[in-house]
């Protein structure tokens, strides 16, 4: 019997994680290293979307794994390890986002956008080519979108990150955030509408 293995580049969620956690709890550091290796890119990306800054994201992602390591024994195994890790990541990301927002971190960043940047982003909308100008404009759009989600309130921001950026299912998001699925959907819709209005205002 032949089995077809398809590698999607995403971490495979299997019982393997549970076994690695058990080994880690027994004191095997290399088992935890395997878990880190498996998830650190995803966690770093999530951290980056929460804080919108490479240095802060690096620190936040490290804090998330440190917290996970410290609390590994509390992982009971009744949910997937990735769900549990994302729960820690979301809580920490949200806290860091609130902390930075209170200190005007995002307000200062938003003011650096020039008219030229905006015009460059506007030109990118109808043009799907891959010339350098369009790539640059694409970068500007990325920056604008990041600024738009930075202006969301924390409850909306976390859902946009988990659903639209990380691509988690509503069921997973509901479990991570401990919210009913209906609430998750309505919050996501409101968050998308806010981002949509900001993009429309800047790009149209």
């Amino acid at each position, binding site marked *: 019997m032949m089995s077809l293995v398809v590698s999607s580049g995403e971490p495979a969620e299997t019982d393997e994680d549970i076994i690695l956690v058990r080994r880690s*709890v027994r*004191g095997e*550091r290399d088992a*935890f*290293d395997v878990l*880190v*290796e498996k998830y*650190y*890119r995803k966690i*770093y*990306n999530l951290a*980056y*979307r929460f804080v919108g800054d*490479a240095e802060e*994201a*690096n620190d936040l*992602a*490290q804090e998330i*794994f*440190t*917290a996970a*390591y*410290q*609390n*590994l*024994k509390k992982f009971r195994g009744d949910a997937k390890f990735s769900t549990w890790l994302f729960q820690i990541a979301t809580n920490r990301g949200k*806290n*860091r986002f*609130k*902390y930075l927002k*209170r200190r005007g971190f995002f307000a200062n960043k938003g003011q650096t956008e020039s008219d030229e940047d905006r015009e460059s982003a506007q030109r990118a909308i109808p043009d799907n080519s891959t010339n350098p100008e369009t790539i640059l404009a694409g970068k500007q*759009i*990325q920056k604008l*979108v*990041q600024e738009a*989600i930075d202006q969301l309130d924390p409850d909306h921001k976390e859902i*946009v990150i988990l659903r*639209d*950026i990380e*691509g988690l299912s509503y069921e997973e998001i509901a479990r991570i955030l401990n919210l009913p699925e209906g609430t998750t*959907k309505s919050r*996501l*819709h409101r968050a*998308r*509408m806010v*981002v*949509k209005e900001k*993009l*429309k205002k800047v790009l*149209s």
Partner: protein
Amino acid sequence: MKECEKVGDLFGDLQDSLLDGNLEKRVREHIHECTWCREDFKWYGITVQTLANLERMNPPDDFLVQLNARLSTQSPSWSSSFSSSFFDFFRNFFTTAPYMPLPAGVGALALIVAVGFLVYNQAPTDIAPYGVADMAVRNVGARSTAPARMTAGGTGQVQGEQMHVGGMVARATQPDPQNPTLFPSQLSATPKSLEGDSRSLPLAIPAGIGANNLIVESPRIDQALASLKQMLPHIEGRLVDERNGGGKVVVGVMIPPNAYGRLTTELINHGAVAVGTSVEGAPSASVPAPAPAKADGKNVLLYIRFMSSP
């Protein structure tokens, strides 16, 4: 327009293909016909697509090295002994929510201030109030201009002796001209009734006054007395007793402890040539010995003896 709002609420489900067949068909028909909804849904789709296509950010090359170094400095909570777990509880208490929200910070600060205020108000003070120190300096000045009239130390008959007047133990010594700042503390008096409750009365006042409290020598008793009566309401004090006889006037005033310095200062400013504390001995026939200083909660009862000065 109401339909547009309903359709707008379904954009998310339509985008995620979560609508059932019939409803999806109706929503799409509306979007096709309504220019405003069509435009809005177009931007909704652009938004969702843009969010989904955001570039994946890559961690720095040394991320794992840094993390490894960080993890090596701490052992996981389950591997530590009971005592370190105990301390970890408090550490985790803060690391779980390390960024205290602003309202919580303000609340904590307010709580600290409130507790501090309560403790300050409850604690016994052994620091002389400003007014007492001020009076000592003024007394030095008064002594230098009219040394013969100073009555500190009473009449001089009780120097170095201990005597009991009106339930008070008083010791008097001659003021030291070389060390004038010691003046208020050189007369010590402890009302027996207050000995067991040092918290009810600031120590500086009963320690600085004698049984007969203050003596004011003035060439114009009436003027000094009038000034006193005039100023009492301003320091939240009140006159509780007044007795005349033999060229002397004794008044009893109830004042807040912190007004003591101001009272004596004002007396000097309004005709008194000297203000001092005294442990006068036997009362004269015409002027009965006043009761010792005592407190009624927040106020202090003081007796002031006005005497004519030549």
